[in-house]
């Protein structure tokens, strides 16, 4: 059954402005159990997968609509708490939601195995919308979902749930979003006891703590990078490649697991890679004008970026083959560090550029993060050669530069355990 005709994708959210709010604070375990009971009751009312896909499609369309008042309010609210500029959030959320088209949702709905269960999601707070792939998959599979929104970002999923409810209440009844402090382990334990499967995002200490009392699907912290083939980082391709990488670095203020922290340039000489670093710095300058960095960085992040800069500056002064390119007020930083192996940066558009001679050297440079690599963008005339090598290192998403924040719906995030749960073979 196609219910699209019955659904208005724009009306509920694009109309008069309404108050956007964060997830409801959970009072106690009883409230959580009651919510799960209501979701279970909702699951007894049959809703075909196609209708869920249509509802989600309509929801994503409204969330993608830049004229939607609710979207604008949501992004403003996230911007106020994160300090990120509205323009940056606008473009970042667009990138994240781009793959969630009706066609892609329909196609995925046809592949999922029905799960009449309730899943609990512990969402991360570093990036608005992180976890949307898995949440969408759960809903498409017909599962009910209770979400613990992160205290650092309690808005996105609450508004997502609201939007679903406003479009199709019978689907909306299957999703409830709460917020509680991570210190309330009693409430998290109650969620675990109340659901069939817990799906958690966060750093490894968070995942380990949650896994202590039973099996979970955990999405631990991961790292991403970019690779410029020898034909991509010079000549006519240089500017477009640098611009695309700058976009990947800039979106979400480099806070997600899909944000590249280091660019490896395949080149016979360091001059080529240095040229790429210069071009990347130029493109980050352009992005900083169009998508302004935060007016005020968090103190710890600012101190960490300052440290990275000072290390680079002093290594260069000490005669090291290092170069520092820096935007004003710590807005962006490019460190040309030819021999560096992969290392995470403090975020906020801080990226290293290094040189590799060949694929074997690339694998060696990525090895310190083996098993913790999420995405790698590849610019090359022969991307498949790189892609195969990256997959052998556990990379779950290989994309073109500029598309790193837009993985497809069947992205085997974290290794694909969630896809497996939904019966999907990548």
């Amino acid at each position, binding site marked *: 059954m196609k219910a699209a005709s019955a659904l208005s994708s724009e009306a509920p959210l694009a109309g008069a402005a309404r108050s956007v709010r964060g997830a409801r604070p959970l009072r106690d375990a009883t409230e959580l159990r009651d919510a799960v009971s209501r979701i279970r009751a909702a699951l007894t009312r049959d809703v075909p997968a196609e209708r869920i896909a249509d509802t989600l499609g309509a929801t994503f369309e409204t969330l993608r609509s830049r004229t939607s008042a609710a979207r604008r309010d949501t992004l403003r609210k996230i911007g106020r708490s994160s300090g990120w500029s509205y323009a940056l959030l606008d473009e970042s959320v667009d990138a994240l939601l781009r793959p969630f088209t009706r066609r892609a949702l329909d196609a995925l709905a046809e592949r999922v195995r029905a799960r009449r269960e309730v899943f609990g999601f512990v969402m991360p707070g570093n990036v608005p919308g*992180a976890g949307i792939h898995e949440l969408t998959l759960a809903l498409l599979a017909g599962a009910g979902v209770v979400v613990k929104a992160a205290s650092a970002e309690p808005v996105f999923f609450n508004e997502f749930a609201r939007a679903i409810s406003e479009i199709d209440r019978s689907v909306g009844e299957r999703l409830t979003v709460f917020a509680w402090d991570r210190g309330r382990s009693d409430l998290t334990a109650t969620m675990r006891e109340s659901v069939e499967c817990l799906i958690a995002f966060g*750093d490894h200490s968070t995942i380990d703590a949650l896994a202590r009392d039973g099996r979970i699907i955990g999405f631990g*912290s991961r790292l991403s990078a970019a690779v410029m083939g020898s034909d991509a980082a010079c000549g006519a391709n240089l500017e477009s490649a640098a611009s695309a990488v700058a976009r990947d670095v800039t979106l979400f203020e480099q806070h997600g697991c899909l944000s590249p922290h280091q660019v490896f340039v395949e080149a016979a000489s360091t001059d080529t890679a240095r040229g790429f670093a210069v071009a990347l710095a130029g493109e980050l300058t352009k992005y900083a004008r169009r998508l302004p960095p935060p007016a005020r960085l968090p*103190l710890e992040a600012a101190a960490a970026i300052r*440290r990275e800069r000072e290390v680079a500056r002093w290594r260069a*002064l000490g005669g090291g083959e290092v170069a520092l390119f820096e935007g004003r007020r*710590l807005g962006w930083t490019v460190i040309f560090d030819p021999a560096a*192996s992969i290392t995470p940066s403090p*975020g906020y558009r801080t990226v290293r550029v290094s040189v590799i001679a060949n694929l074997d050297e690339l694998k060696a440079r990525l090895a310190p993060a083996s098993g*913790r690599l999420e995405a790698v963008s590849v610019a090359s005339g022969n991307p498949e050669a790189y892609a195969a090598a990256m997959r052998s290192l556990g990379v779950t998403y290989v994309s073109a530069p500029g598309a790193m924040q837009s993985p497809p719906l069947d992205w085997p995030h974290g290794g694909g355990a969630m896809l497996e749960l939904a019966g999907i073979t990548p």
Partner: protein
Amino acid sequence: MIGSRLARHRAPRMSIHDQVITFIRNPEPGRFDALGVAVFRHQYDHVPAYRKYCAARGCKPSEVGVLAEVPPVSTVGFKYSELMSDEFSQEAGGLVFTTSGTTQSSELRGRHFVARPDVYRESAVRHLRAMLFPDVERISIVALHPAADAMAESSLAQMISWAVEEFGAPASACFATRARIDVPAAVDSLRAFAARGEPVCVLGTTAAFAALFDHLGDGAMAIRLTPGSRMMDTGGAKGQLAPLVQEDVMALAGARLGIEPYCVINEYGMTELCSQLYDSTALNSPGANGAASRTKIAPPWMRPFALDPVTLTALPDGNIGVLAFFDLANVSSVSAVMTEDFGIIERGGVRVLGRAASGDSRGCALGIGEFAAVSTRPRVASTRARMRAAR
């Protein structure tokens, strides 16, 4: 008359180092800024790496009129560059101190080239007198850290040697080598002092005190040191599996050594600085409040700042920033030093909040700290490398 005026004119102008020593001996707060700017200009002229750094930052000494305009050198600068004055000479008595390092290779340790150790000694001894020994001429010192003869590259070892020379009674002793602390022997010594009713001063890293407290255990093994006994710990969490916080140190010092809380003094210092800060307590600061409101006191020849890491400008008192210092006693290297610690300046004191963390929780994104913890390769950036647990 004319002859004596000419003689005054011909008298050699006091060197910048001697001006600093004079200031340390007789601080005149109103002269600090002018002397500081003069020290900066001297360092610009004599420390080539600093001159290059200033140039890279677009700083011209002729345009620096106030201390706030002096570019601070991050402590990482001491690691990656030779911030050595052209006046430095080991043959002439210059000393080189290196930062501790447990997970990094030796070439990545910071080095502080001190061309004029006499200025360093003057600074260290005078502030020790004011903060740890204001009420005694000499007292027996028990050191839980090697002295300079056993660990010449350690600035803490050097300071312990100077403390023993200047303030130590004849029975003072050191119970540590480069390899280990002889805790049982130190305990025997402390029991002997207690039995004789003789007050003692115990010096060491916080980690060394943790080992001492652990050895003494609960109850029966405790020592009741004679009133007037005191201790100075430094280095914070470095080297400890379960770090003791200041409140723990004070409680354990009372329970296991019988030292009054106001005689438990924590020192904040680092290899890159020739001056140190100490807790203000009733021992050294009449009217000082309890442990909860302790601040650290810099000597009059050192000015602390809390910097905005974005702009590197000093924040108003009461705001959290990255701690930086202008230390006149660093006259023979670089005086404007930016640490990697957060802190607050309040009422002339410094509240140290700890290391500017890079291990922030980043949700699904791998952070620097977490990566460092899981990565098996040698790390360029070691946490707490500059806090001088074992200088």
